[in-house]
């Protein structure tokens, strides 16, 4: 039983890492075909990728969209969770349902709805449009995480601060936010990850300036080349490095 468990674990890791391993290995493929046989290592695809103006611009765009949309989703979600956790408002069940609703809808539908709506009002496809879409998908996430994290303990502290004469903004900033720090961090980074990797909304709502997944998609459609593997591996390595840094700095402190 015990041995079976370890075997299962090993097999599961094998399955989970199989495509990533192949991806990284063949990003060093010498030749145009990223499939076996492996012709020996080269880093020329990495040089290609790093020298690609559009790809690097897309990477920056993705960072901007992810940071901005996560920040907006976080603020909106935080305020809403504060409001709904504080008092029983009439219709608060409905409001909660409405705020969560986008989570139960396919991204494609959200994208299509926004595309026709933006067309209708004459807003051109842009990074801004994609960012608005990303706030829509990340707001429920931020709200749910923060709402679940709020408790009586923190409400008491807020009430005490208000009784002492602190303004609403000061209470939110100096009392609520610090007490919810782990949840805020989790919500922000989760949103950031979702936005960073989101394809279909960004694909339908951007035009010239596109995000990284969209740029990778058009790379993937325009020619067979291990450069696709190289950019995939780069994204992976950078994300993992970031994750490790966060794990040892921000989150470690939070857990204490």
């Amino acid at each position: 039983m015990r041995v079976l468990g370890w075997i299962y674990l090993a097999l599961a890791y094998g399955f989970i890492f199989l495509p990533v391993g192949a991806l990284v290995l063949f990003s060093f493929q010498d030749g145009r075909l990223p499939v076996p046989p492996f012709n020996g290592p080269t880093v020329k695809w990495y040089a290609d990728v790093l020298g690609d103006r559009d790809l690097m611009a897309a990477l920056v765009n993705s960072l901007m969209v992810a940071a901005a949309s996560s920040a907006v989703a976080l603020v909106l979600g935080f305020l809403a969770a504060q409001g709904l956790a504080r008092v029983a408002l009439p219709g608060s069940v409905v409001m909660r349902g409405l705020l969560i609703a986008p989570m139960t809808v396919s991204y494609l539908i959200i994208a299509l709805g926004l595309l026709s709506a933006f067309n209708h009002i004459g807003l051109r496809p842009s990074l801004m449009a994609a960012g608005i879409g990303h706030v829509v998908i990340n707001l429920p996430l931020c709200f749910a995480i923060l709402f679940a994290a709020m408790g009586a303990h923190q409400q008491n502290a807020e009430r005490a601060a208000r009784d002492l004469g602190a303004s609403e903004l000061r209470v939110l900033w100096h009392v609520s936010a610090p007490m919810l720090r782990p949840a805020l961090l989790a919500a922000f980074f989760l949103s950031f990850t979702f936005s960073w990797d989101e394809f279909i909304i960004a694909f339908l709502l951007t035009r010239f300036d596109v995000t990284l997944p969209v740029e990778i998609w058009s790379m993937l459609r325009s020619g067979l080349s291990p450069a696709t593997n190289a950019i995939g591996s780069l994204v992976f390595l950078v994300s993992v490095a970031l994750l490790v840094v966060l794990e040892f700095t921000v989150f470690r402190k939070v857990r204490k």
Partner: protein
Amino acid sequence: MSKTRFPLRAALAGTAAVVTLAAPAMAAEELNALIWCDHADADLLKPFEDAHDVRVNTKEYEGTAAGLAILDQSQPGDWDVMVIDAVDVGRAVERGVFAPLDPAEFPMGDYFPELTLDSHNSVDGTTYAVTEKFGYNTIAFNKAKVDEADMEDMGSLWSGKYDGKIAIYDYYLPVMGLVGLSQGVATKDLSAANLETLRDPLYKLKAASRQVSDVVASQTALATGEVDVLIGGGEWLTAVLHSENPDLDWTIPKQGALLWAQSIAVLKDSQNPDLAKEFVKYIVSPEGQARLATSSCYWGMPVNKKAGEVLDDSQKAVLRWDQQADYLSRAQLYPVPDADLDAEMQSMWTDMLQQ
């Protein structure tokens, strides 16, 4: 307290720093081009951008309907130039989106005569577009795996000999055109009346094939030996793989093949019509033509014969420069369906995919 703000602020500050570092030097002007993927190649755009101190923004589209839909959704003046299927120039002119061009400003005298395509690029005697690149949708194959003689007859694909070794290129117009040729229907004769005769052979073709795929998936399948034959393929698909696998080849079978030709036009509402026209001039110049012909997305024959002086011999060999006279005589232009026929063709294509 300050720790609280750290991640958000750091993330934003970090982003700002990256933006500042990575933002390229801004060019003085911008040109917005609605294009096919071969025009997105930096090697093609760079000489023009440098010469005119302009940044060329590109947006790719597939299929004329989608391209026209993008125009519909844009504000007037959003676009400066557009690449479009030569046979569909009329559709765009009908909507009044293109500006007239003076053919005298372009090197029409250096064109392959079959490719000036006046009947398609002009309406009522006014020219609205110029052809820029062409090639064939035909049969591409791996000559190490198939009998080359079989490839001279399209009927081989239905013979059972290559079942499970065929890929279909995922674009309904050329492939349905080819299936039509196999049934003795010329592309210009394709109509609602005889469209149904294609259904059965199309379904049988699907049954005999392994996949219906876009450019890269088709290239992958052909190059890795998953399939041996690709219907709808041609030099535009095999040329970039030539150095990897010289066995990848293409031919025009006895039933004929489809000639694809792309045109480029200046938009009527362009904010910068002079620069747009300069771009078109660059694209049809020998230098631009050679770069376009060997663009990283796909290769294709230049329409301007003078590009032959810029291309090297091996490139010309891959493009079959010397055989064009024969090929052109045996190829037909794409079908030009009206809206209803187009809808029926697409619907039949979807039905075929769902078989």
